[in-house]
């Protein structure tokens, strides 16, 4: 049995990638099992998805803690999520990056492969420029780097993609052709035993939600033209998650780090003085560094 773990962010297609890999393995005559782990189902939030592939029905229904292959859809996750946790000896880390494998920092010595899936997705017009959908390019690279599925099967699985099947098939072939294998740059980190965090009596959070840095979830951001603002406070009232505060004279101020870009404030503002603008490159873009 072979176990693959995908790490991505909501909106990048990590979950669909796991489903496509399952379909592809099935086309190759294997018995697949794929499933996602959902924390927060929102654009930009870290997402994990799992795939097992075997020759017979799989007697396991748990998440994958000792993967043979780890696929990372965005390099930023290498710093924030312990992606290599449990990776088996002799396993493979596949990263979406334009850099050669030798420049990828990894906490354990591990065989590392890279592919510029973001570049491929942009070139093939998959997703938006701010959020390219990189999953099919990554699957092509995975087919080449691991041999767990054939490129034909990956291309065959793409009938399950909701849009642009031809471009996605081409992206898979591009990923297959472009993947580079090597060793990551080993930067050891200390591990600690698993313990529950100290908890208060009852599920109460220690900080208000406005302090959470959730701005990475958005693709649009609100801009207020204060000249037309009547200080009605509608935006403050309607923002579903405390991302607007009022300054001493009663004008609204967006908490940039917290706003998720839902656009409700803009829709509710009576004089229509809030505009949602593309938040291009606000945090260095997606998957590029």
């Amino acid at each position, binding site marked *: 049995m072979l176990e693959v773990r995908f790490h991505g962010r909501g909106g990048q297609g990590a979950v669909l990638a796991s489903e496509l890999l399952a379909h592809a393995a099935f086309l190759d005559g294997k018995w*697949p099992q*794929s*499933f996602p782990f*959902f924390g927060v189902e929102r654009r930009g939030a870290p997402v994990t998805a799992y795939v097992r592939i075997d020759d017979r029905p*799989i007697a396991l*229904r*748990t*998440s994958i803690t000792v993967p043979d292959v780890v696929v990372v859809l965005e390099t930023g996750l290498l710093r924030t999520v312990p992606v290599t946790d449990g990776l088996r000896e002799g396993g493979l880390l596949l990263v979406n990056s334009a850099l050669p494998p030798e420049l990828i920092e990894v906490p354990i010595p591990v065989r590392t492969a890279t592919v510029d899936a973001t570049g491929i997705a942009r070139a093939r017009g998959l997703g938006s420029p701010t959020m390219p959908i990189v999953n099919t390019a990554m699957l092509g690279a995975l087919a080449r780097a691991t041999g767990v599925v054939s490129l034909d099967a990956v291309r065959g699985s793409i009938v399950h993609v909701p849009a642009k099947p031809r471009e996605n098939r081409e992206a898979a072939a591009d990923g297959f052709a472009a993947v580079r294998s090597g060793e990551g740059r080993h930067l050891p980190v200390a591990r600690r035993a698993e313990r529950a965090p100290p*908890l208060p*009596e009852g599920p109460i959070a220690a900080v208000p939600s406005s302090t959470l840095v959730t701005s990475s979830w958005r693709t649009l951001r609100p801009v207020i033209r204060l000249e037309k603002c009547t200080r009605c406070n509608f935006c403050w009232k309607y923002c579903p998650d405390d991302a607007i505060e009022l300054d001493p004279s009663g004008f609204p101020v967006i908490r940039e780090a917290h706003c998720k870009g839902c656009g409700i404030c803009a829709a509710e503002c009576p004089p229509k003085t809030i505009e949602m603008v593309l938040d291009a490159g606000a945090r260095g873009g997606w998957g590029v560094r």
Partner: protein
Amino acid sequence: MGRQVISGNAAQAHAARLARVQVVSAYPITPQTTIVETIADFVASGELPAQYVKVESEHSALQCVLSASALGARTYTATSSQGLLLMHEVLHWAAGMRAPIVMGVVNRAVAPPWSLGSDHADTMSQRDTGWIQFYAESNQEVLDTVLLAYRLAEDPAVRLPAMVAEDAFYLSHTFEPVEIPSAGEVDRFLPPRDARAVLVPGRGLRLGSFTGPVEYVQFRRQVADAMERVPAVLRNVEREFEEITHRHHGGPLSTYRTDDADTVLVTMGTATTTARGVVDQLRAEGHRVGLAKLRVFRPFPAEELRALADSVGRMGVLDRSFTFGEHGAAATEVRGALYGAPRRPSVSSYLGGLGGRDITPGLVRKVYRSLESGGSELPTWVDLLPEEAPAHG
């Protein structure tokens, strides 16, 4: 349609389509949403000529299919967690009105704290509403059980609603190969609903109206009797299903390697799959262990458990929920069923996998090890971690 790679939620939707349900009403809730989205697609494309009624809450969704069911329609709804809790009042109505509704439930933890993870507390807290309860282990079992549930629920000897539960994510969002039967096969197994004794527009009938205490007792007893007839009907229905599809999921209590076992663990849902793998490993190491899956929780398979207990020394019950009693929900039932049995093994209660925590092979091994060294009188929380330091709220 043959074998396809689909999710547990798609398995629910395909089963509803194959059952030719006539009225569907549901309210979306993660991780159930893709069930009703898929059904909505089937209705929109004309593959399923049903009425899809959009409502503003789960309470209304169940009320809607209850009304349609009272008029003789075959109905389907689906929900999860908080949505199921919101249905609670109507769940009692559906059973008391003898409406053979079939509902898919994705087992998800009950808040607070907010969680999307797998946990049986939602359905366990509905165990006394008069619904038949199935717990599935694979996507194939989900699809087949929904079809079985219609035959069983609509049987004139039963006429009770049934819920088919699947673990959040471990099934709902897991893609794996599933044999999708053809419409012809399902039509042979599941003919249109026999809609006798239901409301007829234009005729002055009332359902569920006021009664005095005498009639109340008689009606409650009718529901109890109907529930008691479930095992016999299920046996026949499963046999017929097997003749057509060549699949049988093992009755209400499905056992694995229990024949010469001295230690048996009772599980529900997807924990069973992982536990089966562990049983194979432990057997290979010389341990005489077995496994029993509670596939049906209501009516509780007490007979089958007593038969199993006759040859077993120690039993453990792994509950994927916490309920407020001395033992886990299923463990309490098992202990109750065995109290009057001629031979009584020890029964230990284990709680694990709450809120979507993984029930890993290591965890199941730990449970068997605990059982083999005598088990324990009080419930054991198998995956509780030591806390870092005391906190002050």
